């Protein structure tokens, strides 16, 4: 497997760990039971730390002009998980805003 392909796989893996980590951090703020809350918080935190290490590796093997735009897609994954898993209400206006931020992020990242 060449380095670029490995880098793209690592970006996808970092998106997965970051989004699941963020969703669990948010979920921890909603749980009242202190023991369950700590478990979910630590799970989320450990995923976020894992993401930092994966991202550091990505920086070493992949061009930023590829890595940053790709990572912007994490925003869509987070929004979808927020809607279907956390049951957040996302209006059409917010979806439009999310896509604008995603599009802008891709342009900034690729420049």
């Amino acid at each position, binding site marked *: 497997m060449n380095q670029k392909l490995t880098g793209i796989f690592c970006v996808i893996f970092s998106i997965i760990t970051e989004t699941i980590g963020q969703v669990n951090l948010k979920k921890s703020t909603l749980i009242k039971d202190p023991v369950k809350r700590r478990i979910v918080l630590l799970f989320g*935190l450990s995923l976020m730390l894992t993401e930092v290490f994966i991202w550091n590796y990505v920086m070493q093997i992949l061009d930023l002009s590829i890595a940053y735009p790709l990572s912007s897609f994490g925003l869509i994954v987070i929004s979808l998980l927020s809607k279907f898993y956390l049951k*957040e209400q996302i209006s059409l206006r*917010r979806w439009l805003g999310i896509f604008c931020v995603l599009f*802008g*992020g891709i342009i900034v990242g690729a420049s």
Partner: protein
Amino acid sequence: MQSKLPLKLIVRLTLGIFLISLLEIYWKYLACNILLNKSFFQLLNLKDLSYIFLLVLILAGQFTNWLKVLKLADLSFIEPIMTISYIFVDIFSYFIFHEAITLKRITGTLIIIFGVWLISGTKHSTIMAIPKL
């Protein structure tokens, strides 16, 4: 549609954007000046460790603030708004690292600002059932 945001949320979001911008710029500064071409053992001196400690301190501050922000609003609301830190990183990168600000970057930044404006006009928090563990 709920467009007025609570002051507490505005303050926390602003602090979060400031801390994440500071974190990115400081991390880049460390990577380019302090950590560059150094092995783990070469970093074990008081000067370099104090630089790394400051990074950990900013990270801890950002994480603590992030948890507070998460309590105040939807994840789908705050996560895209945090991308406004790109703008501050761009401005500071221009002055500190003398990086070029291209027309493409300005266009992307304006689109982000428009997106954030759209999001900020939506209801910031959904009353939701606690998901099962």
